[in-house]
């Protein structure tokens, strides 16, 4: 069994259907992917937990992770999955830098205290320095997960390491934010597919998020809205039937397509109602810039600990 680039129609169909692509868009994607070597991707991890990378491995809807890694992109550097270690790994990153034009993905926040020394990626190179440097020659910059997009939990009060999001470090270039704690694999893969097909970033909202995934509030498409909220049926305790608003649900002001897309499914609705509210837990507001301090304490309508 020799693994090599295969015919692309199989998953192009799924991509096209999901994204409303024209036939010309499809041909363009095929041409891009048929070229020797896929688009290079450099994936750097700052102050993260690898949760967004693990989430990426769950990709299914646009394409599976093996399709993505074997047939679609050239993942030149990703510390969690790459075969090479030490020198070899660093050289792979440096080669990608020299060759330019890669998609730079950043997972995790960037600590700026102590000149960035709270996070080293390899000897002598802090996350701060690496993101500054690698952003220079990147074709696109993706901040994956809420830590990279907005600072996230790491930047929670009192933010001991002065952690910031990618756009604070990369001021001269566009940063596409793909928040979520973790980010949904479809949001990551769908955005990359869009870049490859259209040769430009998707339409973004005021927080730099692709509108195709983050346009509407969770509440607007929540099945509990019609069923409970609009009839003023509110759960007073966890485990009760009803709209979860009074238990601290952040769905009314959190923008993400979770109610429609669901999580961990091959297709929406397959194998149950797998998303936070489907599991009878309030939306935690994890795709918003105010996560965690604006939305916590969770499980209550109390005012946030920190005003944002």
């Amino acid at each position, binding site marked *: *069994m*020799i*693994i090599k680039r295969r015919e692309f129609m199989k998953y192009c169909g799924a991509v096209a259907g999901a994204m409303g692509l024209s036939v010309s868009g499809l041909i363009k994607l095929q041409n891009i992917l048929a070229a020797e*070597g896929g688009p*290079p991707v450099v994936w750097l*991890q700052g*102050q*993260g*937990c*690898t*949760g967004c990378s*693990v*989430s990426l*491995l*769950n*990709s299914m809807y646009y394409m599976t992770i*093996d399709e993505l*890694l074997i047939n679609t992109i050239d*993942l030149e*550097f990703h*510390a*969690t*999955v*790459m*075969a*090479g*270690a030490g020198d*070899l*790994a*660093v050289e792979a990153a440096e080669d990608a830098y020299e060759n330019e034009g890669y998609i730079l993905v950043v997972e995790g926040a960037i600590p700026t205290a102590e000149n960035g*020394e*709270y*996070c*080293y*990626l*390899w*000897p*002598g190179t802090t996350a701060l320095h690496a993101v500054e440097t690698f952003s220079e020659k990147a074709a696109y910059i993706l901040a994956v997960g809420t830590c990279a997009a907005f600072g996230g*939990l790491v930047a*929670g009060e*009192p933010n*001991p*390491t002065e952690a910031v999001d990618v756009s604070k470090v990369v001021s001269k270039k566009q940063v596409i934010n793909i928040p979520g*704690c*973790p980010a949904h694999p479809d949001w990551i893969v769908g955005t990359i597919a869009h870049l490859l097909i259209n040769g430009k970033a998707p339409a973004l909202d005021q927080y730099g998020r692709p509108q195709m995934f983050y346009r509407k509030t969770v509440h607007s498409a929540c099945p509990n809205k019609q069923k409970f909220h609009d009839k003023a049926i509110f759960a007073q305790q*966890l*485990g009760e039937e009803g709209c979860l608003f009074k238990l601290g649900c952040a769905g009314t002001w959190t923008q993400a397509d979770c109610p429609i897309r669901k999580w*961990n*499914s*091959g297709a929406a609705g397959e*194998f*149950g109602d797998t*998303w936070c509210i489907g*599991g009878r*837990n309030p939306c935690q507001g994890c795709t918003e810039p105010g996560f*965690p301090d604006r939305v*916590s*304490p*969770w*499980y209550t309508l109390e005012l946030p600990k920190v005003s944002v």
Partner: protein
Amino acid sequence: MIKIRIDPVTRIEGHLDIEVSVDNVDGIQQVIDAKSSATMFRGFEIILKERDPRDATIYTQRICGVCPVSHAMASTLNLESAFGVLPPDNGRILRNLVLGANFIMSHILHFYHLAALDYINTEGIVDKSPWLPRYITTDMVAGDTAEVLVGHYVQALEMRRKSHQMGAIFGAKLPCTSTFVPGGCTEVVTAEKISDFTTLLSELRGFIDNIYVTDVLAVAGLFEEYYQIGQGCGNLIAYGVFDLDAAGGSRLLSRGRYTNETIYDDVDPAQITEYVKFSRYTPGSGNLPPEDGETEPQIDKPNAYSWIKSPRYQDIVHEAGPLARMWINGDYRRGISVLDRIAARALECQKVAEAMEGWLLELDVGEPTYEYSEIPESATGIGLTEAPRGALGHWMEISDSKIYRYQVITPTAWNASPRDDFGNRGPIEEALIGTPVKDVEQPIELLRVVHSFDPCIACAVHLVSPEGQSLGKYRVS
């Protein structure tokens, strides 16, 4: 003497730097000294201060995206002990099922996607990034067997995805479940969900029994010398996991330890002490039990070389992980080595998956999964459980109904710890000693030893920090 530095150690969670000294001993070039250190600091315990105690479950899961469910379990057990509440049986079982699903996910991920590339030469099979560049050594599996294993690597990507899909049926989403709360689980039990879960579990059991375990045995047969390599400290500790009753009286994998070749069926948390002589913390942060833990960094501390503390049980070095659990439970006692860790992990995966099938039958459709409780004005809590990679403990102190103190000791803190106050190396460091290194330019043996522990660095580090100095590009000297 030659110094070898591998930084970054890849195919693990997090940022790890390994430095060893290699010399010729009895005609064999081997490791004579080893140091491991982590290079990332976030400060979760500091951020948790003064927050609503219930938020700990959401927060601590983000310590690690590979084993968030274990942090969810540790924090809910911690909160339940502080709140004085126990989950109904349904809630307990649902949490076990979600945790079990994440164990299966993590164990499959570890063998195929993190460890296996140390043993398989993928050249000619998949010649592109991220599988290139890489070390290629003559002892690696090549040819037809390698092709089969690479095929299983790809299949295992789907299987680990389905493990998460299965866990999400009762966990809402993975990584990072949102259904674990003190008092049980917010998700409810329906016949349809049981059926969906069973369908996926059956498929996964087929993969584990027929492919995963078989591949592990095949690799073990080809690398028998690794039953002698990476033996480490020889002491094992497990808090136990998968409560079979709400009070935690019995567990699928029992609590206990193996110290100086004797098995003990108890672990007394009061006997755990964290040392910091070689960690970059003030002396006042050391020699403390976790419930009184302090973490005040001291960057320029003389002789300190790590930002991981050294947890010790009765001042003795212990290794945590699937091998510790299986050993203490009496399921696996062949030996302690690189291959024993890998084999015990696979057999544990099989055991947990089998048990999960039984738990599904114990669920009562329509019965409660959650018991309400109030946040106490002041209380202390403890939550001991297991992550896929070993013993995980959370401790907390509540004051004025807020978190006053939150401390976490993770399995990788046990395993990747530096020397303690008595000069004893941590388990990974100790396991590296004596490891033969054939080619210092391709020190694959070191990766095999380190990977056998399945380290998770983001977990291990209370405060990992500045290296102090910039060491340039040179990594093999």
